[in-house]
């Protein structure tokens, strides 16, 4: 299923029976400014969902409204068929964009505190925390105050606090922010483990390779509306489908079979028109006298799609 802002605005999105998160016609006004305008989408049980958008597009606002931290101006935001309440916190793991824990307390004390609030016994929370700290190379930091840890180490602890209750729904707002590549890999492994264990993951990130690696479906949020929504492949198809890349000599003639989207010296990218098969296009080029040195096909990466969707925004941001 692929939606864009036009058809989502009509409210056609339906709650699937397996959906864990259901958002319908969500609107959020700050003063007279609509940050979110009639947003609707579902996150299915067991899937990893990429919630994407440029800075200020309303991702964090949506998450905060979903978790009852903000009161929505309008619409329905449900988890497991009802509005979230802190009583449901035992089934939730939430890593907010604004990172922070009780900095004057020791790592173990904070982890045990949150573990107990999430329903673990003191012993279970301590035992789980010890294992997690070992896995993340922080075993010697258990009794150290959080403010004595590096920013990356603090983030690892916060991730541990987020997942220690084996949550049914894991909401991660820019989880790899501030991590070096090694720890980013470790974090991705931990998220994958949670996914394998059956968790539904909602992930906000600007790292598109992470989305391609982990996410089943994505939503691109722009100006408070869903710009694109569907599986990664569906979104890629929507933004150009298959791209034909050629290295060549000669002149590429105009043709109803394709459209030239990029032309550089001896290199071009072509888009197939009317889903014409790539081999037909190749044959037409050769017959037109174009010398083909190299021919390949591929879809646009999410990174490229992101640039395509938000490029104008970023440029206008910079120019301001």
């Amino acid at each position: 299923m692929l939606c864009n802002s036009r058809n989502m605005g009509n409210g056609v999105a339906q709650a699937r029976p397996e959906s864990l998160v259901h958002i319908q016609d969500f609107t959020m006004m700050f003063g007279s400014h609509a940050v979110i305008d009639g947003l609707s989408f579902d996150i299915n049980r067991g899937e990893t969902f990429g919630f994407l958008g440029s800075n200020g597009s309303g991702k964090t606002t949506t998450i905060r409204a979903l978790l009852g931290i903000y009161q929505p101006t309008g619409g329905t935001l449900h988890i497991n068929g009802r509005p979230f309440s802190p009583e449901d916190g035992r089934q939730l793991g939430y890593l907010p964009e604004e990172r922070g824990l009780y900095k004057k307390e020791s790592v173990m004390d904070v982890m045990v505190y949150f573990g107990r609030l999430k329903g673990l016994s003191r012993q279970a929370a301590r035992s789980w925390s010890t294992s997690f700290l070992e896995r993340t190379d922080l075993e010697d930091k258990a009794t150290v105050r959080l403010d004595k840890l590096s920013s990356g180490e603090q983030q690892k602890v916060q991730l541990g606090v987020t997942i220690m209750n084996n949550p049914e729904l894991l909401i991660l707002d820019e989880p790899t922010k501030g991590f070096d590549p090694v720890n980013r890999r470790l974090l991705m492994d931990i998220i994958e483990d949670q996914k394998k264990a059956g968790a539904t993951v909602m992930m906000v990130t600007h790292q598109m390779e992470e989305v391609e690696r982990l996410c089943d479906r994505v939503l691109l949020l722009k100006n408070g509306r869903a710009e694109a929504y569907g599986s990664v492949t569906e979104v890629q198809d929507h933004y150009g489908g298959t791209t034909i890349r050629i290295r060549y000599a000669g002149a590429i003639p105009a043709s109803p079979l394709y459209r030239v989207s990029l032309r550089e010296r001896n290199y071009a990218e072509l888009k197939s028109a009317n889903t014409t098969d790539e081999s037909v296009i190749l044959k037409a080029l050769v017959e037109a006298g174009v010398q083909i040195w190299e021919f390949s096909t591929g879809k646009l990466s999410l990174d490229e799609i992101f640039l395509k969707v938000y490029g104008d925004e970023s440029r206008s941001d910079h120019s301001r």
Partner: protein
Amino acid sequence: MSRHNLRTVVEFEVRRTITKKRFWIATLIVPVVIAVVFGLVTLSSSETNSSIEAQKKATFSFTYTDASGIVNGALVKKLGGSEAPSVAAGVAEVKSGRIDAFFEYPANPSRGTVKVYGKDVGVFNNGRYSSVATMILQLSADAKIASPELAALARGTVKVESSTYKDGAKSSGIQGLIPPLVYLLIFYIVIVLLGNQMLNSTLEEKENRVTEMILTTVDPNTLITGKILSLFMAGLLQMAVFLSPVVVGYLFFRTSLNLPNLDLSSLTFNPERMVVGALVLFGGFTLFTGTLVAIGAVMPTAKEAGGFFGAMMGLLIVPFYASSLIVSHPSALIVKVFTFFPYTAPVTGMIRNGFGSLSVLEEIVLIGELMICGYVVLRVAVQLFRFGSIEYAKKVPIRTALGLSTSRRTNE
């Protein structure tokens, strides 16, 4: 689950409060200062007593003149003194250094002044002359009365036991006043010492950016209640530590510290006043705590919240400007205003309750008002924390926070 989380919050907050160095520095500094003061008082007291004794026993040569005829010559002789031929001669002998002191008793010592002339032996030791001059006069008067009992009565050494009645029942007097006023003491100590911590208790979540994590894990009502309970417990601990040197001093060093001998068994506990006092304390504590928590929720930093803390403390002190009226004229308009204005009501109410000047109707209105105001303020504080503390670096206008909190949820 809510109860489990409340216990977890209380345990966490109490543990981290009482394991802070800052808490113990603030807590121990008071008993240490009290102990030092007590030590100095004991030392000074014993020095003073020794000095007085030494002065009494001091032997020095003196002469006197007596226009009253009261001074007993034999007594003076025993003390080593003698009568001077005239005032001028006595003063001259002192000036020349032939004798140490000369006392001039007037014709009527009860109205006139006994004049003492002496050789200067230092500011403190010069007091011995007047001590001996007074003692001579006192002993001479006792000798004239010739009855130790009458002499004691003449000095005003009389034991009096008063019994007063109100509405036909024996009133309890000062013994009945003390127990309900203990609530006022508790209220002051807890609010003054812990008010700043109450203010900072929610600011910490905000400053540490932990609000989102905590709000999705524990109900804000449970969190705030847990924080208040833990602060109250920490306050009780502080009070116990503060009072410990006083109790030790009273039990073991009462005489040397010149502490009054309080017969605790004579204290009267009026059940009505004790219950009313406890309820006013509870309501007042809830109101002040809720207000401080609310301020903490909308202020971005402890520094900015500090100004409001000063204003809250001011409201605690204001009723004392009318304390004499509160005690003597409880029906005065200002007393009525202070009794029912929520932020002056706890202090005024507890004082009036102690002195028994609250009518039953006033008690009911006061307690009801404090309970309702406390509950409302606490609810507002929770809402402000819930919707105000998410604005980490900004001061949230209360209207905005409340406006958000009261907007209708359409997803329910």
